[in-house]
């Protein structure tokens, strides 16, 4: 048994998914957080059901890869029931998708989410009437608080078992005739899709399905073309437009029948935008929010880092002589311990508050407002405001950032945004900047590195957008209402992301520390360092940075932890000058993305683009570090 969750971006599908599946899907109060689909198994009334969280989409018309993915999934794999999640506060806009889903001919359950929000906004929805009009079960839902979740899945199980297929939407007669004329030539070849669904897509001239039909049922194409011409003659508009207008009109008439709007008093939330999107105060607020955010992360991190680091130092001093000091076992033990302490003391204290903060900003709905404020700036990078999403996600981890570039519409923009978002310092690199620069030289210099990073990204964006020119169509993006984040969701999301670090990166980190300890013990490190000597010489860094930089390609946080090892466990302050700390951090911020990011790049853009980006980042890193070295030597 398999259910698919589908709905418009930001309607709360992923929140619903997480309610039943534990925390597995990325959620956030902006469009495009779920870019690939996540599957999970749950038990409903004793039956094991696979639940698939599909990326949010406004229509089944696939104009960008995220939307393509949804339709492909519904058309190609056996889904036993479709759960359509609608946002009660904007029912009308969600219904256009619902009408397309009715067309598909799959068992359908409609979950009207955010009922609490709707009540607050003075919107009342007549569920039973909607159910009657659509011919598919309609259920109320408050996914964020888990209300109504069980009913939705039990109903889905029922419609799936009985294979209850809702009736098709009622189009105008000429459109219906055109669809039927095509559907007459289809005899279940495209099951589980209803013949009329395929007919409607052919009528619209959907490129993907037209291609599929041309290989599977080529005799249908002339019929479809004839129907298209007929519509064009009768309506004076192409069929795609006519069908969209039909659905729009159907949705509007449905909404009119079931939605009742009462006046509601303007609340604080409605007035928040007067400040946060204000042409002047909006930017003041943006800077203040980001400043507080970084101060908070630093404040918490440094508070925790010192005592933990001290504890592990003492542990090492006590443990290593106990095992046997300078022999192989002792060296390995020290290496392992440093790997463990590196994770606990240097990475986690900054990563956890950062991710909690990012989760808060996401769930409140501030990120799209940042996109709104930053759009004109992003234009100067050859991108538009929507591309801020990969950038912001990039501060957490570059991998979801690169995956989220799928929400962008053209390939050029995706390439550009993916390239630039690998330059965004992720949480792992944050730990390097904070653990080294902020810890020893103060938070303001760390902030300066972040600002310098933005500058480098801007310059790179400008140069690249000149090299691959094409006009961008401009920003078109929904701005969600502010929502009060639930603590549970924010913490679950932070845990989901921390979990990644703990299970994937940390073992590599510990093993890496041990390998490095071994290399040091066997006196092999000089060879590796020699290989990277040209770079370390150029940047005025000690040659020992070579090995940490190589390990940094595995995981960025390794470069700092390994550096500690490579410098013989001495305090950074004793081994490096402030200028060297800054130069090293800047280089680490920009050079070759980590393995996970590289593989995401290969998946999204191909191997050639991945190698190109890796090469480019080494060049950028060297230049940026040189500039940082020059400026730091002058200032400090």
């Amino acid at each position, binding site marked *: 048994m398999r259910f698919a969750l589908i709905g418009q971006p930001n309607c709360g599908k992923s929140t619903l998914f997480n309610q039943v599946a534990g925390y597995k899907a990325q959620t956030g109060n902006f469009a495009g957080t779920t870019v690939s689909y996540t599957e999970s198994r749950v038990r409903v009334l004793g039956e094991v059901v696979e639940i698939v969280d599909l990326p949010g989409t*406004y229509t089944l018309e696939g104009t960008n890869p995220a939307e393509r993915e949804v339709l492909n999934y519904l058309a190609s794999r056996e889904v036993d029931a479709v759960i359509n999640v609608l946002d009660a*506060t904007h029912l009308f806009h969600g219904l256009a998708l619902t009408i397309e889903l009715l067309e598909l001919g799959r068992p359908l359950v409609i979950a009207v989410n955010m009922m609490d929000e709707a009540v607050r906004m003075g919107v009342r929805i007549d569920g039973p009437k909607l159910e009657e009009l659509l011919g598919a079960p309609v259920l109320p839902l408050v996914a964020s608080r888990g209300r109504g979740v069980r009913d939705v899945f039990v109903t889905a199980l029922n419609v799936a078992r009985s294979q209850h297929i809702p009736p098709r939407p009622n189009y105008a007669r000429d459109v219906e005739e055109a669809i039927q004329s095509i559907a007459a030539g289809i005899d279940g070849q495209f099951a589980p899709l209803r013949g009329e669904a395929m007919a409607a897509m052919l009528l619209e001239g959907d490129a993907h399905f037209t291609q599929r039909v041309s290989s599977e049922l080529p005799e249908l194409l002339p019929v479809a073309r004839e129907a298209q011409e007929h519509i064009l003659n009768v309506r004076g508009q192409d069929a795609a437009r006519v069908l*969209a207008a039909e659905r729009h009109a159907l949705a509007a008439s449905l909404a009119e029948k079931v939605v009742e709007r009462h006046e509601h008093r303007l609340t604080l939330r409605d007035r928040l935008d007067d400040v946060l999107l204000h042409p002047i105060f909006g930017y003041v607020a943006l800077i203040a929010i980001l400043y507080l955010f970084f101060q908070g992360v630093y404040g918490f991190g440094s508070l925790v880092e010192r005592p933990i680091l001290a504890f592990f130092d003492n542990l090492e001093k006590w443990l290593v002589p106990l095992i046997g000091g300078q022999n192989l076992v002792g060296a390995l033990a020290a290496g392992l311990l440093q790997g463990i302490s590196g994770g606990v003391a240097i990475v986690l204290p900054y990563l956890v508050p950062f991710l909690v903060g990012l989760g808060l900003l996401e769930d409140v709905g501030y990120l799209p407002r940042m996109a709104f404020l930053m759009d*004109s700036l992003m234009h100067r990078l050859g991108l538009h405001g929507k591309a801020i999403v990969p950038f912001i996600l990039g501060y957490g981890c570059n991998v979801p950032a690169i995956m989220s570039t799928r929400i962008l519409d053209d390939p050029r923009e995706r390439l550009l945004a993916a390239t630039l978002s690998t330059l965004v310092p992720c949480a792992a690199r944050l730990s390097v900047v904070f653990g080294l620069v902020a810890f020893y030289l103060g938070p303001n210099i760390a902030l300066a590195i972040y600002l310098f990073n933005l500058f480098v990204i801007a310059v790179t964006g400008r140069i690249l957008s000149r090299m691959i020119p094409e006009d961008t169509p401009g*920003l*078109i993006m*929904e701005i969600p209402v502010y929502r009060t984040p639930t603590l549970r969701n924010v913490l679950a999301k932070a845990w989901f992301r921390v979990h990644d670090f703990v299970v994937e990166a940390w073992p590599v980190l510990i093993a890496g520390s041990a390998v490095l300890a071994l290399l040091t013990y066997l006196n092999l490190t000089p060879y590796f360092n020699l290989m990277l000597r040209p770079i370390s010489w150029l940047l005025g860094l000690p040659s020992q940075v070579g090995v940490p930089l190589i390990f940094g390609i595995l995981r960025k946080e390794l470069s700092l932890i390994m550096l500690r090892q490579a410098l013989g466990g001495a305090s950074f302050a004793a081994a490096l000058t402030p200028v060297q700390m800054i130069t090293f951090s800047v280089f680490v911020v920009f050079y070759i993305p980590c393995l996970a990011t590289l593989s995401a790049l290969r998946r999204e853009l191909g191997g050639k683009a991945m190698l190109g980006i890796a090469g480019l980042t080494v060049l950028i890193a060297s230049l940026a570090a040189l500039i940082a070295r020059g400026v730091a030597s002058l200032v400090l």
Partner: protein
Amino acid sequence: MYLIDASFGKTVRIAAFEGGRRLEAKLRQIGLMPGDTVTVVRAAPLGGPLLLDVQGRLVAIGRGVASRVVVEEIECVSH
């Protein structure tokens, strides 16, 4: 008249889109269709996007896009 020329707070009706199928499809997807009424509620400075109220929903569109949306004024001020 184009949407970019509409004054703040004034509700206008979308008459047509100029500027290609792709742009039109994108606007359609976010729920903007000829015949719909929209209100420009704010604008980001320095050539930034416009913020529209589309029947209670907020949609941001760039000025380039707004200059390709043909709108007409309607009699009543609010819907």
